[in-house]
């Protein structure tokens, strides 16, 4: 699927996947790709401690949006900001004329008790804020770096569960609005990220079906991250060249891993009929802006 076309047709893209699959890297690359497609893009980081700004060579994100990649020459700005549940709660209380008590509610731990009475309330406040940003045209496209896998399901299910648990009041309205956003394919879709390995693929398939069945959210293409690119000539006999043994061992390793990958790509396609975007493994332990560009280009 053409990434520029997909990104132009979306208002909010939620990137989700289990820990260790490179979700943040994929978020960065996708945001960069959107900027290149001329879309002013806002990346929202829910944990406030992710490696996202490092990938762009920028200082830590704050509550106010800051520039991750400036636009120019046909590309648009990529911006980033944090949005933690506590931020969202404070803002919500302020919006409802409760500014004075908000600090005390949180500091006394009373809010924890309340959040337990109505679980998912933090998630709804975060998603409610995202919806507000979308409605206010804060950017052409908002990309959300979602919590890791199992949590992503709870996170996205929050709206539906809260609608049942809280039947009246502002939180009910908020949950209804959020659900409307999540289930509108014109406004929102989820991009799931995995590695070409057995367990991550199984978990991705499970998550995909749960999200579709229980949240009713529209799924975009899946991203298979970290594929070893194919190299020609790995079967050549190095004879007694210096390093011949290392050549052979490294080639055997890469062949074995590449075969695994092919097998997993095939399994994924078989079990989940969604378009795939495939991103290469970069043989670099420290990723920076140049690598983000390389991955952005790999989306096609």
């Amino acid at each position: 699927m053409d990434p520029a076309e997909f990104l132009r047709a979306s208002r909010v893209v939620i990137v989700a996947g289990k820990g260790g699959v490179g979700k943040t890297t994929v978020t960065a690359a996708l945001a960069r790709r959107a900027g290149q497609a001329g879309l002013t893009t806002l990346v929202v980081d829910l944990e406030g401690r992710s490696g996202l700004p490092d990938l762009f060579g920028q200082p830590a994100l704050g509550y106010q949006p800051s520039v991750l990649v400036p636009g120019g020459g046909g590309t648009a700005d990529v911006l980033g900001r944090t949005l933690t549940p506590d931020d969202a709660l404070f803002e919500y209380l302020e919006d409802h004329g409760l500014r004075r008590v908000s600090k005390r509610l949180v500091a006394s731990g009373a809010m924890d008790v309340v959040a337990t009475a109505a679980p998912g309330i933090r998630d709804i406040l975060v998603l409610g804020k995202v919806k507000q940003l979308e409605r206010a045209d804060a950017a052409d496209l908002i990309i959300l770096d979602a919590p890791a896998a199992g949590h992503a399901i709870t996170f996205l299910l929050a709206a539906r569960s809260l609608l049942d648990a809280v039947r009246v009041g502002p939180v009910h309205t908020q949950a209804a609005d959020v659900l409307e956003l999540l289930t509108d394919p014109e406004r929102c879709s989820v991009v799931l990220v995995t590695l070409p390995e057995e367990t991550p693929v199984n978990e991705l398939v499970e998550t995909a079906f749960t999200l579709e069945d229980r949240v009713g959210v529209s799924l975009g293409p899946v991203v298979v991250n970290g594929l070893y690119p194919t190299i020609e000539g790995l079967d050549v006999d190095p004879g007694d060249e210096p390093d011949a043994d290392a050549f052979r061992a490294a080639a055997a390793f890469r062949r074995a891993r590449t075969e695994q990958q092919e097998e997993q790509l095939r399994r994924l396609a078989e079990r989940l009929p969604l378009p795939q975007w495939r991103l290469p493994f970069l043989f670099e332990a420290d990723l920076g802006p140049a690598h983000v560009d390389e991955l952005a280009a790999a989306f096609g």
Partner: protein
Amino acid sequence: MTLSALVDDRHIIICTGTGGVGKTTTAAVLALEAARRGRRAVVVTIDPAKRLADTLGIKELGNTPALIEGDWPGELWAMMLDTKSTFDALVATYASDEEQADRILGNRFYRNISGALSGTQEYMAAEKLYELHESERFDLVVVDTPPTRHALDFLDAPRRLTAFLDHKLFRTLVVPTKAYMKAVNLAAQAVMRTMGRVVGTEALEDGLAFFSAFEGMEQGFRERAAHVQALLTQPTTAYVLVASPRADTVAEAAYFADRLEKSAVPVAALIINRVHPRFGKGLGPAARKRAKALATTPLAGLARNLAEFRTMADGEERHLVDLTERVAPAPVARVPFLPHDVHDLDTLTEIASHLF
């Protein structure tokens, strides 16, 4: 103390680290090794994705230990934590009678706590660990902690949960018996009204009903939590930090190590999974130079491939040197990124061969 010694001597091993670094697999390998060394070991996983069952080649794991058959002198057991039923059992233990237990178990607020309150999963893991340890059925209990960004969630969970159950605000509302409490109560009610505007009154009423049903059980819970907390910091309990050599997870692991150190439970060992193999001897720059020289020969592909792996290995090495110094004198073991996936006892055994 070596990793072997830990597996031989300790009663409890807690595997900690961020998500996606292979904690579940590592926990299983440590328990398997203990069984192979003749100990009765049980591995407790908290992973909702049922990964451990997959890896051990069995269909399903429940909330009680299942024996894994195998050719070793000790015993290997495995179980998957069910947060809710563990909590239910605790309530049943400390309720004064069946009626009180039923009132709590049927309360919607309680069902939310047992399923969704952050920290409950960690506490129930600690609780299960305590129960298994006390049962004396096992010489070693290995626990795989929930993925978290906060190193101390697990260690601190018993204290936090009891603080929550003892919550003053709710206590004042539930127990407004004494006259001098009246003023406090009025203030509390104002706060409650505010909260009601946020979450709706039904949710609040559920909460109040819960705290009122829970009345009288806090003491038992608090004492139990104190025992659990003590067990978590005993010298027979070891914390094994699990990481991978990626820049972001190394940074997180360093943070975990610092926090554990500050809580006087230093890292007993560091296990690094998925380390890219270094083929032969030699570093990235030389390999890249050679690849350039061979670029137009039939060996181009082989040389480029080797250069890529050596570059990767160099980068990972840089990350790991710092982390190794940070946890010193704890031993550091590395598990190479394998040419195949880990999904059965044979592959667990293969990983063990890199650790022991």
